[in-house]
């Protein structure tokens, strides 16, 4: 299980990095999105990869901790996922505008602040 997870996360990162290294800006944005997904997964699994119950309490007074998935990483990731949405929306809008103004998708033409 650990091995499979590690390999899968590694693969996701590799995909993200590869997309980041593209000259096409659209691919770069996709890469950012892949990376944010992969990172969320890492944080989630850092809380322990034992499969256990959902983190919702019953009315019992005494809580059996081993039966509950660590809630803290979940809260953190929930925030991260939503922020990832914000980033994706904003970068896409930026890209859209950029393309409309400059007519190119090539990052190498973004080297200068002047419009060329």
């Amino acid at each position, binding site marked *: 299980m650990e091995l499979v997870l590690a390999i899968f996360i590694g693969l996701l990162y590799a995909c993200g990095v590869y997309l980041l290294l593209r000259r096409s800006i659209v691919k770069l944005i996709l890469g950012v999105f892949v990376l944010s997904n992969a990172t969320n997964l890492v944080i989630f699994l850092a809380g322990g990869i034992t499969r256990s119950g959902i983190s919702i309490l019953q009315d019992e007074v005494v809580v059996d901790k081993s039966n509950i998935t660590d809630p803290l990483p979940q809260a953190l990731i929930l925030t991260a996922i939503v*922020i990832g949405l914000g980033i994706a929306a904003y970068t896409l809008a930026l890209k859209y505008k950029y393309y409309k103004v400059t007519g190119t998708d090539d990052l190498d033409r973004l080297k200068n602040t002047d419009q060329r």
Partner: protein
Amino acid sequence: MHQLLPYLLTSLLVVGLATPLLEKKLKYRTGVFLSVIPLSFFLYFLWVFTSLGKTESLIIPPIMELVRGGGLSVRLDGLSVLFGLMVSGIGVLVLFYASAYMRKYPRQGYFFMLLTFFMGAMLGMVLTNNLIALFIFWELTSVFSFLLIGFDNHLEKARKAALQGFLITAFGGLCLLFGVLLIGDIAGTYEISELLNKGELITSHTRYPLIFLFLVLAVFTKSAQFPFHFWLPGAMNAPTPVSAYLHSATMVNAGVFLLLRVNPFIGDTLLWDSVLPLFGSITMFTGALLAFGEKDLKRILAFTTISALGIMVLLAGIDTTKSIKAALVFFVVHGLYKGALFMIAGLIDKTTGTRDIDRLGQLWKPLGLVSFAALLSFFSMAGLPPMLGFIGKELIYGAKMQAAYFSNIILVFGILSNMLMVGISFYVFYQVFWPYRRVKKKVAIDGHYARSFLLSFGPVILAAFSLGLGLAPVRIGKYLQNAIYFIRAEEVAVDLGLWHGVNAVLILSIITVGGGILLFIFRKQVAFNVARFNNWLNKFYLPDVFDKVIKNYVKVASRQTDRIQHGYHRYYLITFFVITSLLVVVHLFANSGIAPELQLQPIKSYLLILFIVMAFAAGYAIFSSSRIAAILALGIVGYGIGLVYLFFGAVDLAITQFLVETLVMVIFVLVIYKLPVFAVFSSKASRVRDIFIALLAGGMMGMVVLKSNFFNVETPISDYFINNSLNLAHGKNIVNVILVDFRALDTMGEITVLALAAAGVVALLRLNIKKRENE
């Protein structure tokens, strides 16, 4: 009364800021009006000077401290007051002079503002009792002299000279800061009055040579000592009132002042007694020699200034009571005659339109009283009786004979330099003023300037002082005792006089004058040869060398920046990923391998299938050439991750993930058809390279994940949330409770980010940037 001094010094800043306004009302009279300030300072210093006891000093604590231990505390003793007198006294005359000289210049208000600031900085520097404050004022004089030298900023030469002077003196300023900090570190105080008896502690410290080096660099750059002397002649591009002020009694003397100031606790060591006289002698001789080859009146004076500064550094370095006395007297001597001569040079420039000593001539009659002032000043410069210069020179000879190291060589160089000085004095006076010299073409004379009261006032007064103090040296001698007491910690009676009977010093003086007259007789040959020597020397023209160094420095820096900051975003990322991955991998291996005790859990078969599907989808997404297919493939990955969350019991995460993934898909699909198709920009080789880098980064992350599974450094703080979710927050869904209750502020921040992103998107879509036509 004394307590007000720090406030008065600070108020100069306000006065300076007000001068441009004053100038609007007063026009050229601004200078005369402003001279009230240095005049009152002068009278005040005069009063302090005469009322101060022989071993007395007044210390006024700072108003507030700028840094710990560094505030503007004021120290009134013989040394600071003597310098204060010269700075303020010549300041008065320079302001008078400038108000006439600058009359036709634009931006006079700005000029007088700078001059006031400079005067304030200079006064602050000589008066302060604190080394930190001294450093600040020291740098301020550099800044203002930069602005003053470059006042004619439409001339490239002036700008260049100003920059050069500034770079050199500011470098010295930094050295001074290092030196001061080291002193403070060792002695535990920056107050000069407390440092006075800590000399032993500092000079015996192992870091003393470093302190000495830094201070000497500061002094040599500011006081234009060889090999930093070259900025001073360049500074002649300044308007003449500036030269008259900066190079007679202020700016360049700051270095000498510093030497005298720190002498009690830095001086009297082997380094001090050998390095300073050595460089002082070289500077003294080079300055005097090079002056002979110049034709421009101001440049001649500049080189003689370098020579005079060399003498003062040499005297400070010999470091005996006699030499300190000589240095103090010579400071006054030099200030008086050099101020006068610079002003006269400016007057001649205005009157005739040239400063070339070959073209000038027969000015004795047209200039009247000023010619007489010039005669007296040249006499003082040559060190002839009955001027104060004579007394100064006698003292210097006496002091040089006392030098601890190679006194013979110093004496010989001293005599040669003084012969040159005598020769130059006669030579210049003869060329410019002598009524019987034959000139090919008489220069035209503008009588308006020749008779200008304001222009001739300064030189005449200064020459009168040179003469008066020469005739009655007791007037000044009495008061030098206090200064010498605080420098040498010795009580001595200072009796200055013109006539001390026939002794070795007098004989030396006679030899000097004889030599000088010989030089004057052979002036043409000497000037010609020195000029030739100058030409040869110009091959290694130091200002040019300096320029080149600066230029190359900038070039190398920009080339290096271009290499590091190349602007290709993917190379930044490659650098980042490769270095990070390698560092992390090495570190992981160094810490007992990747996964020391793997206790693998079995995996559910449906989960394995899910992972395989996602892996294929991700792989497909990055290599697909269809945009929509890539997005959908990434969607599979996203939903898959949602399922993984679900599998591990994180319901809220799974719901959010599904929702967000869906939204992102929708946005992508909406936008994607407005965007270009996937273009392939990169070559195959670079794609292969990128795959390797990506695999390296991915492998690194995989290892981190593996390794992190076996770490639980601290007890998770989650227990707190689990235990208190129901009790404190009355919520059963712990994740939700954390988000909206325990960490509500974070959620608030998250919402803000989202709102900002939304606002940004709207703004971007509405923004209307015109595409350039000429693309």
